[in-house]
């Protein structure tokens, strides 16, 4: 019981991202722009036993409510994640991440010869396939199906 409390200590205000695919918590932090120099109070739990997923990661960020584009990015690497928005210790909103059909400026095309990887004024754009998660570059048609986290901008 004590152990459980340490893992999921309630927060007053902020966001709890639950059911993150095990092993992806650090990438979630990267997406949120949280590094060693940020001042936010952050708790990370990794490889927590979970009924649904077997094991999962959890990230809690205090005093911050996630923006939609941040949630979109998380959905690419953790499609089962749930987002809990907390105010005054209460969950005021709870939703699952939803893979968008298109993403813009989130992932860099893995084809080095793609026009989106040049000095041209162009933002990388992908059409998203849900199951399995696959990204097709709008420009060069190159498909990213593995290691999406490595290509996050």
């Amino acid at each position, binding site marked *: 019981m004590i152990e459980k409390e340490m893992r999921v200590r309630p927060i007053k205000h902020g966001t709890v991202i639950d059911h993150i695919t095990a092993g992806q918590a650090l990438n979630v932090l990267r997406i949120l722009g949280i590094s060693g120099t940020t001042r936010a109070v952050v708790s990370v739990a990794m490889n927590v036993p979970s009924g649904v997923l077997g094991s999962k990661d959890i990230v809690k960020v205090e005093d911050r409510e996630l923006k939609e584009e941040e949630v979109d990015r998380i959905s690419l690497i953790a499609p089962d994640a749930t987002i809990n928005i907390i105010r005054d210790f209460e969950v005021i909103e709870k939703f699952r991440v939803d893979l968008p059909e298109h993403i813009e400026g989130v992932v860099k*095309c893995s084809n080095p010869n793609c*026009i*989106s990887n040049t000095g041209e004024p162009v933002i990388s754009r992908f059409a998203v396939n849900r199951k399995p998660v696959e990204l097709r*570059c*709008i420009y060069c048609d*190159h498909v990213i199906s593995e290691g999406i986290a490595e290509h996050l901008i």
Partner: protein
Amino acid sequence: MMLKHIISMRDFSRDDIDIILAKAKEFEPIARGRKSGLLSGKILSTLFYEPSTRTRLSFETAMKRLGGEVIDLGSIESSSVAKGETLADTIRVIGNYADAIVLRHPREGAARMAAEYSKVPIINAGDGAGHHPTQTLLDLYTIMRESSLSGLKIALVGDLKYGRTVHSLAYALSLYHADMTLISPRQLQMPDVIKKDLKKQGAVISETTNLEEVIGDIDVLYITRIQKERFPDPAEYQKVAGSYRITEELLKSARDRLIIMHPLPRVDEIDPAVDRTKYARYFEQSFYGVPVRMALLVMAMEAG
């Protein structure tokens, strides 16, 4: 059909393709020399960032035979591109002069991006290892005119890994539920991701390394050059160069109505003696580029 830009075969439905092919047939007499002023007063700009002779000349021929004018970027070395101008800027400038732009560029996706910046229609004449839709359309037109697109049994031979014409042709043929046999050296087999996509569209696909065993069972033999410039490793090229060669001997067991196609230029894939056989259609194929590009130019300029 209002397709302003012509970028990738993926943008076309089978109905769109049928409309273009029917239109190309109407233009065939003009491509053969009958006078026309259909695009008189219109200007086409050709922007070739990579060398090409056939594609550029056939676009120029198509435009001029329809009574239009052509302006050319000229050599890249002496143009604004050499000064470091982006493609996005070049496109916006040229769009103020011309009614449509034909673009060939070494980067994949260049035409798609150009279309986003252009106020006039962009026709993709090849973007790196990406798409080359006008080649695909003229290939389909050749099959329609010289063979048949329905119930088609076709063998695609050569470099099926790097060859962009073959990928986009195979995609289009899948819309016609063609029965395709893929024949290539093991190192140059069609990528799985493309095969998966073709099957999803309804294509019947089989694979082999042996051309002899299927030659008697196909309507169209489509052979491509193994392109040295697409190989990252010259040693890998040497291993597969000259893997397949069409000779009169090989054609002994061919069907009577077989046709042989090649996007040209050829190196040594087809023995010159084959040119004199009833099977050869590759020079007709290069002619058909003109009526097909006429159809595309007219449709693009009407939409633009």
